């Protein structure tokens, strides 16, 4: 059985999560034990309780199957804590897609409206601001620990989990420090603290304390585990807070180079590495990664920032053996990673400026962004997204649907990205006489209209201006059959379809199109 990691925001509707392999979501079932309020810990902890706030959020997800619509608003609550600068730190998933946010301090009945100042969806962190300065009266910003906790350290998790309305404290030990998936984005992995304290829906965003200092921020749990919770550790929080210090969030940079270890003696010999025990070899350069243009496939990475990279890809760091990627984790957008590499017979040093170019093929979860769409003859086209794939659900056995699964994993590796900016999918047919025979094309990947290659949604409009002998000929990737619409009838049907199905506009190309 797969382990399932769930975000721990309490939502009245449901808690959702990603089962990574099939990209399907499930309704998390978590047993909610009523949590007794423990006796007071240290006095510092008692003071900190006033810095731990309850966050009320009304959220409205966008509908990726009917992209002009939104789901019903749902209410949820999470936790957060006050940091310096009169700000509140919480999880991004507590406030994503939020239409209205309020915060409340422990012991104070008044709720204060708040808004998101920064959200880092790749690291599931967000900073809120409260306009009324009265909110911060009698509060003390938390203090962050400067080092990671040790395994078996006893930590305290504070927050507002389900099972009651008042603040809750639970204790547990740090059982593991590891890299793990951050379910909020669905694809990013960063350092996590695994603790055996109860982290339940509602705990999200609350602090994890050790000796009165914050060592982490509670964010997700394992639904099938027994008291296995996860917290975002100090280094990730610091990375986020440092990133936003200049007034904008850039996110974690991506090296974008896949490497193979060189433990195989024959491989090492072929790479002229015999007699050493360092180096990993680059076998893939991500076209949207930082390494593009600097590193090449076949390069052997010998050191990073002066640290030797062992043949298995690890470095010795602060007395621990860790993946060399951990050094990249510490980098900010715009910084460089300095590699000593072997390229052919040459040893050279290369600085790779680290960025994170907008990559439409990573298929992270999307928040706070309306899906784009274009309707032609009642056929709704939209860029492929993780959300849409999720809406297809388990029905991925058809050729068209399986193709979606393929491109989400192989778009860049197999070079499918080269002649397009996005995968445009026929996501829905709004039935009308003009599209009666379009059913077999559902979930097809649009490749061409009227002989013009379709790179993105906007290309559709251009292509539709040039019908072929009065017909729109629409072709899909992997299909021998094409879809044909009568151009004149399609034009006449547009207003009828929009009116019949309550669609406000036939296209939405993003905020700039509004």
């Amino acid at each position, binding site marked *: 059985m797969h382990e399932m990691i769930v975000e721990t925001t309490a939502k009245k509707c449901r808690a959702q999560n990603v089962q990574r392999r099939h990209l399907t979501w499930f309704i998390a079932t978590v047993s909610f034990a009523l949590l007794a309020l423990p006796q007071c810990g240290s006095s510092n902890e008692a003071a900190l309780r006033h810095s731990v706030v309850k966050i009320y959020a009304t959220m409205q997800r966008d509908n990726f199957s009917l992209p002009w619509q939104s789901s019903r608003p749902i209410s949820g609550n999470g936790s957060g804590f006050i940091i310096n600068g009169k700000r509140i730190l919480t999880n991004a998933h507590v406030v994503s897609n939020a239409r209205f946010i309020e915060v409340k301090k422990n012991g104070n009945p008044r709720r204060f409206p708040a808004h998101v100042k920064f959200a880092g969806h790749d690291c599931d962190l967000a900073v809120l601001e409260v306009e009324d300065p009265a909110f911060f009266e009698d509060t003390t910003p938390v203090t962050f620990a400067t080092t990671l906790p040790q395994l078996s350290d006893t930590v305290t998790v504070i927050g507002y989990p389900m099972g009651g309305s008042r603040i809750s404290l639970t204790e547990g030990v740090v059982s593991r420090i590891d890299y793990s998936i951050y379910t909020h984005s669905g694809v990013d992995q960063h350092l996590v603290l695994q603790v055996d304290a109860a982290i339940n829906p509602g705990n999200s965003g609350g602090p994890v304390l050790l000796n009165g200092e914050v060592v982490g921020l509670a964010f997700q749990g394992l639904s099938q585990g027994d008291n296995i919770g996860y917290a975002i550790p100090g280094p990730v929080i610091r990375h986020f807070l440092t990133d936003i210090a200049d007034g904008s969030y850039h996110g974690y940079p991506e090296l974008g180079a896949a490497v193979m*270890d060189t433990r*195989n003696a024959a491989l090492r010999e072929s790479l002229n590495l015999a007699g050493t025990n360092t180096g990993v070899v680059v076998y893939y350069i991500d076209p949207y990664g930082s390494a593009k243009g600097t590193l090449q*496939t076949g390069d052997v990475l010998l050191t990073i920032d002066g640290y030797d990279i062992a043949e298995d890809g690890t470095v010795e760091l602060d007395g621990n053996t860790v993946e060399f990627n951990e050094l990249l984790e510490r980098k900010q957008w715009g910084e460089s990673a300095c590699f000593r590499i072997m390229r052919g017979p040459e040893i050279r040093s290369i600085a790779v400026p680290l960025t994170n170019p907008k990559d439409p093929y990573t298929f992270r979860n999307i928040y706070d962004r309306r899906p784009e769409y274009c309707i032609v003859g009642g056929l709704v086209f939209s860029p492929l997204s993780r959300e849409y794939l999720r809406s297809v659900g388990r029905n991925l056995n058809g050729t068209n649907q*399986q*193709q979606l699964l*393929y491109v989400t994993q*192989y778009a860049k590796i197999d070079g499918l990205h080269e002649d397009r900016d996005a995968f445009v999918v026929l996501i829905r047919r709004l039935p009308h006489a003009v599209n009666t*025979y379009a059913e077999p094309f559902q979930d097809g990947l649009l490749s061409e209209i009227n002989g013009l290659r379709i790179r993105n949604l906007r290309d559709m409009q251009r292509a539709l201006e040039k019908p072929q002998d009065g017909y729109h000929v629409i072709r899909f990737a*992997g299909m021998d059959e094409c879809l*044909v619409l009568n151009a004149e009838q399609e034009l006449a049907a547009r207003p009828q379809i929009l009116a019949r199905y309550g669609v406000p506009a036939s296209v939405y190309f993003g905020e700039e199109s509004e």
Partner: protein
Amino acid sequence: MRYSLLAALTLLSFGLALTTQADDAPVVRVVATHQAFDPFQPWQKRTPGTRRGFGVVIDASHIVTTSSLVQNHTLIAIQLARSGEFIPASLVKTDPQVGLALLHISDTTQLPPPPVFADKVPVKCTVEIAQIDETSSIQRGDGRVLKVLVDALPGSPYSALQGDVLTDLNVDGEGAVVFHDTKLAGLMLSYSRTSRTGKMLSTSIISRFVQDALEGDYKGFASAGFSWKPLVDPTKRAFLGVGPTAGGIQVLNSLPGVAENQKLQPNDVVLTWDGYPIDNLGYYTDPSYGRLLFPQLIKGYRIPGDASQVTIVRDGVRQEIQVQLTHRDENSDLIPENVEGDPVPYLVEGGLVIRELTGRLLKAHGGQWQTRVDPRLAHLYLTSRYAPDEPGDRIVLLSSVLPDPINIGYQHFRDQIIKEVNGQPIRNIGDVFRIVEEDGSIAKLSLRAIDVPIVLDQASLANANERIASQYRLPALRSKAPKPCSVANN
């Protein structure tokens, strides 16, 4: 149409054609022990089993039964009615495209006299179904052929002319024999005890198969080598230049294995085939059976080498063309299905398991195989399995790695497509065998989208191969497999 052929087939009543009286029904029980190859470890077989069904005697030493009954057989025997004796039989020919197998017995045992073949399926007529029960007695039951249709054979990608039979007999296995007026009307391919209906293969297919198989140079059944779709959408019809009432189907693509100059082309609209008008769903009116899908005009009435007269609309122009028919088998495909579960060729070199991709390998992952296998392989199969870039192209895989010190660092590779071996491009497993024979071993292997070759230590390779063969109990490190994915096995 080859009515003359049909007439000739009725002459397949070898010896004296008798009516099927109580104890003389030409029905035998067929017992086949079988052992399928393990799709994941092609050097070994799965747990053996036994299948029981029936067959029909067609002359003094031959019996026809279903191909699935004897698939992957290790031993075949027949039993006569009122006898428990197992009489050894050998497989002469099997053709999964029509779901039939021809058996031969060299034993001098007197088989029941063969039946006369009915010249057509008796639609909406009462038939008699005969099998051998647990007391070794002939058991008969009445049935009725509800309709005749061209439909997929059970568990097969191929279609053939079949009858839907409703019967009160609990049909106890494949190959139960169907009679009409004492003549052989068909063989039961499947039966549902819930609906009490089953599928019956028509005698026209059986007699064609028998005649072809007995001649020794099996030609198989004809194909025109194209994929098609109904053409109902009036907009698309107009776009392709055919009126709303003209009928016709749309050609989607031509398949490999057909001569280039005789191919139908994508977007051709086929209006008639051998003079029979085809409607927009792909049906024609058969003189014997009424509405049938038009592939019956090819597979049912033609043989490889024939030319069909076809009326098409191409680029809006109506024209007559001749389409040369061939026998097409899956060996032409980029990804053969391996319907019969034949042994596949493989190499194990330094623990790297190299083989070709087949439909059987993918489907061995179970009902949801489309989401369980590597998405790239599933996509290739679903969209391109019939379409090699060049004839003979296959997908050659590094399917797995048997862990050993020689392949440390490579053991995570699985289901990766191989581009090159020892610097030479790979189009099929034959290329790999050739290179290994020329070079003596695999020194370097390149995978698609992984721009670092896998390198094997040549000094320790021989010892490693020996060690791997011993530790993983490989009977052979290389097997060319005598007839990979063959339609027929003699």
